[in-house]
Structures are given as C-alpha cells and as structure tokens.
C-alpha cells in the first residue's frame, strides 16, 4: 500500500481497468448512496421499464445510510453497510452502466462475474469508521425516495473519500487473497 490513487467520478472505463485489488484509493466527486430499500425500488422500476430518478451511467453507488446531520454539519456519521445484501440487485444496476460500488464485505460469485462482464470496480471502506468518513463528505442532498429516511438516495459530493479496491474489474479479490495469505494451517 504505497501510493494513494486519486480517482474522480464519474468513472471512465480506462480508470476502472487500471484499478487493481489492493490499491489504496481516494475518491473525489459525486457518489450516490443507496441501500436495501432503494435498490429494491430501483430494480423494480428497471424491470417495469420506468425511468430512474438518477442516471447511473458511469456513476458510483455507495451502500450507506447516514445518521442525521447535526445543526451546522453537512451529514452525520456515514460509513459503509454490508454489500452482500445488495448482491441480488447489483448485476441489474451494472447493466444500467454503473461503474463503481462502495461498501464493506465480500460479494457473491454472480456479482463478480457481472463486474468482469461490465468492467466495474468494487471499493471497500472501513466499516464502522463512520465519524471519520463523514469528514470527506462536502455536500449531501436527498435526490430520491425521501420517504425511506436513512435509506433515501443521497447525492454526495466527496473529497478524498478513503477506500481500498477490494475486487477489481478482472475479478481479483482482496477478501480471498488476503485471507489465503494469513490463514494458518497447523
């Protein structure tokens, strides 16, 4: 983990291709929060042929539901949630042109295959380091599904949001490589 790779959103195919599992990254630009309930609604809309409230082409989705902002603050604590719960929806989102996902924890085989097919990268942020992460959020605005409260879709403008490439667009997977390296077999 030598140098930090500065990445700006929206992502291009070239940038995605260059990112490798284990790269330390800092992201700047717009990212969209969406978690379980929002993904359910989004994918239902896609299946019904409806227009989505946000165009996800080349965009990054952040699996997160922040705490309420205190007065004078842009956002509350805002760390990643478990990505695995979005596995059922992610391939459909990638087919919509989604280029990046930020969350925590491993992904399913199907998601990784879809990432390879659609040239998509998966970033992991540090789960539970939510007060720290909030510092990199400069703007936040609900852009869809306000009624979902913490699960609404928020458009965040982030500056130097810290994360790690956990699974790259070739399917290299830090969750497998790292664990293999440190597993002790007696």
């Amino acid at each position, binding site marked *: 983990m030598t140098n930090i790779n500065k990445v700006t959103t929206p992502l291009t195919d070239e940038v995605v291709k260059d990112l490798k599992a284990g790269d330390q990254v800092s992201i700047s630009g717009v990212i969209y929060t969406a978690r379980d309930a929002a993904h359910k609604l989004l994918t239902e809309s896609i299946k019904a042929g409806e227009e989505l409230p946000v165009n996800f082409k080349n965009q990054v989705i952040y699996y997160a539901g922040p705490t309420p902002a205190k007065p004078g603050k842009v956002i509350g604590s805002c760390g990643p949630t478990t990505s695995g719960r979005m596995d059922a929806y992610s391939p459909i989102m990638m087919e919509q042109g989604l280029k990046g996902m930020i969350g925590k924890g491993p992904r399913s085989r199907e998601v990784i295959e879809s990432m390879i097919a659609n040239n998509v990268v998966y970033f992991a942020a540090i789960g539970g380091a939510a007060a720290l992460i909030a510092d990199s959020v400069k703007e936040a605005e609900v852009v869809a599904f306000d009624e979902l409260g913490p699960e609404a879709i928020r458009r965040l403008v982030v500056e130097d949001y810290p994360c790690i490439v956990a699974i790259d667009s070739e399917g290299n997977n830090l969750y497998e490589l790292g664990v293999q390296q*440190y597993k002790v077999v*007696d």
Partner: protein
Amino acid sequence: MREITVEQITEVVKTLSIEAACDLPRDVEKLLKEAVATEESQFGKYSLEKIVKNVELARAEHAPMCQDTGIVVVFVEIGQDVHLIGGSLNDAINEGIRQGYQEGYLRKSVVEDPVLNRKNTGDNTPAVIYTELVPGDQVKIQVLPKGAGSENMGALKMLKPAEGLEGVKDFIIKAVTQAGGNPCPPVIVGVGIGGTMDKSTLLAKKALAREAGQPHSNPAYQALEEELLVEINKLGIGPQGFGGKVTALAVHIETYPTHIATMPVTVCLNCHAARHKEAIL
C-alpha cells in the same frame, strides 16, 4: 420497598443510548489498540488504525462512531425490593430510546413489521427488552445498540450430545468463518451453550454485555475461550476481512444446564463497534 419512578428509567436509557453510540467503552478500545500492535497485515493494520482514530474522533465530537446505531437490546435487572412507579416499564424504556435517538442525532433503523411492510417506525423503537428479577433494591440497566452487519452473521445449532466439545468448537469456528468480513471484524464472539433453543440465544447475547476480554469464571471455560480465540485468529480473515491475524478481539462463553438429550449452541457476533453501556439506579 424502595420506589423508583419510570421517569428515572427513561432518563437513564436516553443518556445510555447516546453515550453508547458515541463513546466506545474503554475495554473494547484497549483491545483494539493492542490489536494495532499485533496485526501484521498492511490492510489489517491500516483498518485498525482508522478504527481507533474513528473511536477517538467520535468521542471528541460526540458523534456516532458508526452510522448503524442499531436496534437497541436492553437488559434490565430489577431488585425484588424495588417498586417501579409512574407507569409502564417498557413504555419508559422506549421513551428513553425515542428521546435519545432524537436528541443524539442517531439513525432510526427499526421497521414496524419484519416481513410485510418493513416501514420505519421513525424513532428507533421498540427496543428488544429483557427483564429479570433479582434479589436486592437496585435496578441495573444495560443498553446494547446492535448493528445488523454483525447481528445477521449469528448462528444457532441444536447439537447432539454425542458431538461433544469438538462439535461445539467446530460449530463456533464455522460460524466465524462463514461470517468472514461481513460483521466488521475484529469481532467479539458471544457464545451461549445449553438451556433450550431460546435460552442459548439469550446467553450468547448476554455474553456480549460482559466487559470485553473478561474471562469466564470457570477455569475450564476460560481455557476454552482462550483456545477458541487462538483458533479463530488463525483463520486469516483479519480486520474488515482483508486478511490478517486479528479476526476476533475476544471470545465470551455463557452456559446453562440443559436437557439430557440436547446441546444447543448459539454464536452471536459483535463488531468492533461493540457498544455497551450500563447504569445502576
């Protein structure tokens, strides 16, 4: 009989729920700092350093350390010589949660119906409340906001007595292996063994209310806790599942007598944001 008003209970629950979210208990923080020193993997170390920094920042800014401020598990031990006056205990506890989550700017993460509507109740109530009558004239309240990332990775098995100690160990190791990076390791592993199906799950949850790293009072179970911790940390999962030496900070086992034909075992995981606060009235 000593009288305690339910308003006092509300006040305590409110304070504890805000404190729990923003101020990680020192026992857990101590284990995390030790882990920074032990961890060899670069991503593991990186994660642990961020986690420790986050704990300090959350405390200084009085901000929730994690955005998942949980569904709140409340353990109440009520002395038999206490008379609670002024209303319902459960209502008073939920009122405390309501006020704490509002005033503390904590996330409301509870849905009204688990399957059919999944509509947010808007105030993080109701809590999951367990009351127990004990001798004495005090009321002890423990508040454990429980995040779903770790809660979802819990596991229960009704083992056959013939499976013995090996069966118990295998099941615990399997549960932690399957959880992998999902419960935000390093985790605290709560284990409940014995009783009935429901009792073992309650024991496993209660194990998480114990001061982190404090061993079981029975030396044989203490040895088992230590052995399991070593075995779990050989799994290589590491902080955040990125690979490393520290997958768990502690293993806490609680047991209860059981039926001749059964051996229930539950594993309940807590993430590094192992929030627990208590007060005695």
